[in-house]
């Protein structure tokens, strides 16, 4: 960095500190006029990032109420000041902030995770999923090793996780036309799968094993690894056969839902 840029960098760093932190000292030589102007910039910054969070997490805001959401948003932007050029990115990690702040209501963090995953899916790269029939034709001559080594590429920004609450019910109850956000009802582990179907982000509640299988293969596990994962420790022949059938069912489901982009053996 040149001396010219270095001097300016110091000025801008001090300015930014004053925006992010009310308690930060104003740059040297500033008077009341600059302090009044800085108050406007601080206000602009806060309303911009708070509005961005409210826009990205409309359902979470409705679920917890305006005051609680505002407090959570303030906490989030103080602990995670934005660094990316797109303001929407300030929502990254908001589910973790919700997990920290709404410890007695863990469904809040799950709901925030789902909203973020849906938002991410909405702007994923356009893609043509692999037709199930095309995979069926290509795999008709697979040898055992081909199946064992089979790896899948899923559609961009598809994701899955395990949750403990009825997110589908909570999500529906928070539709704009609904007046009564649902209290979390039945608890118990289930999986959530998020992807974009055409232009529409969508999610599906699935079995926990299915979600774990999806995550494993998304992280590079082969189809053979998947069968081993589903068969458990020290499996006998029947367990392996059952695991293979289960894996086949999952693969069919992913293909039919349009989640598979490509494969390799």
């Amino acid at each position, binding site marked *: *960095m040149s001396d*010219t*840029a*270095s*001097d*300016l*960098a110091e*000025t*801008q*760093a001090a*300015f*930014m500190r004053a*925006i*992010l932190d009310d308690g930060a000292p104003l740059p040297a*030589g*500033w*008077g009341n*006029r*600059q302090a*009044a*102007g*800085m108050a*406007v*910039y601080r206000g*602009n*910054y806060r309303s*911009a*990032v708070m509005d*961005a969070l409210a826009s990205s997490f409309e359902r979470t805001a409705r679920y917890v109420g305006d005051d609680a959401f505002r407090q959570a948003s303030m906490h989030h932007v103080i602990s995670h*000041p*934005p*660094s*990316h*050029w*797109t*303001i929407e990115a*300030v929502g990254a990690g908001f589910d973790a902030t919700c997990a920290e702040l709404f410890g007695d209501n863990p469904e809040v963090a799950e709901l925030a995770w789902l909203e973020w995953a849906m938002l991410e899916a*909405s*702007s*994923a*790269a*356009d*893609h043509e999923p692999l037709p199930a029939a095309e995979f069926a034709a290509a795999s008709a001559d697979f040898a055992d090793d081909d199946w064992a080594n089979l790896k899948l590429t899923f559609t*961009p920004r598809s994701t899955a996780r395990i949750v403990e609450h009825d997110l589908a019910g909570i999500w529906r109850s928070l539709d704009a036309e609904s007046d009564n956000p649902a209290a979390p009802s039945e608890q118990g582990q289930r999986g959530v799968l998020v992807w*974009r179907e055409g*232009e*529409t982000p969508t999610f599906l509640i699935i079995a926990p094993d299915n979600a774990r299988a999806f995550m494993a293969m998304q992280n590079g596990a082969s189809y053979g690894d998947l069968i081993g994962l589903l068969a458990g420790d020290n499996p006998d022949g029947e367990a392996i056969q059952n695991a293979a059938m289960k894996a086949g069912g999952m693969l069919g489901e992913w293909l039919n839902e349009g989640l598979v982009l490509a494969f390799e053996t």
Partner: protein
Amino acid sequence: MKQQSNEIDVFGGFGLGFRSAHYSDFLDAPEEERVPVDFLEVISENYMIDGGRQLRILEQARALYPVILHGVSMSIGSADGLNREYLTRLRALADRIEPLWVSDHLCWTRTSAHNSHDLLPMPLSEQALQVVCDNIDAAQEALGRAMLFENPSSYLTFPGDEMSEWEFLSEMARRTGCYLLLDVNNIYVSAQNHGFSAHDYLKGLPLDRVRQIHLAGHDPATPERDIIIDTHDREVCDDVWALYADAIAMLPGPVATMIERDDNIPPLSELLSELDRARGIARESLLEPA
């Protein structure tokens, strides 16, 4: 003077910002009832994405109207230089949309660590001017085209300022070959906040470099707050209309004029009515294109 990457032709139309509340008005009207604007301006960053519905909507709009890409996050005044990923994405969007031009603001928005997502003021010094010009050269080279830069509203000035904003803009345009987007409301707001003459500002600019004008509303000063805030959330006030008329009369030729509303988006008919007022003012100056 650095060789400019490209000339930007004069385009003398009247347009509006393309906001989600009006997507259907613009895209779904039958051809004979198409919204009477000459161009649409979009916020570049909203479309610098990998894919999805938002991009398809922009492509639909582009099929019907010329489009201007107007950015808010290039941070042309950053001492830390420009963000390469940002430029790559903006270039890809410009190549895809083939806009009339690409614009951003004379401001900085980020340091190497954080982003304010606000248009922060530049110190008006020779040092800052050199940083801005170096960054504009880099941006125009990366984009393969000349850009427009807009004068921002500002709420403070730096104690060590060495020149006026119009002197800064003039020298910036001379050194880099960039063009200017004149926000008449922003001139008015800054003039009120800092006590300079809006007419001195206009007179001090190289008006042949202006290719576009923005018109917008602001939040007036109050007894508790003597700073005017540029909100872009209400109709253009009479003082700004008068300044627009002065600017149009001073310009050497036609420029693109746009009503810029970013918040409290009203029905489209209200914005079209304001745009008609702009057309009328331009017509009176005999500058409206045939």
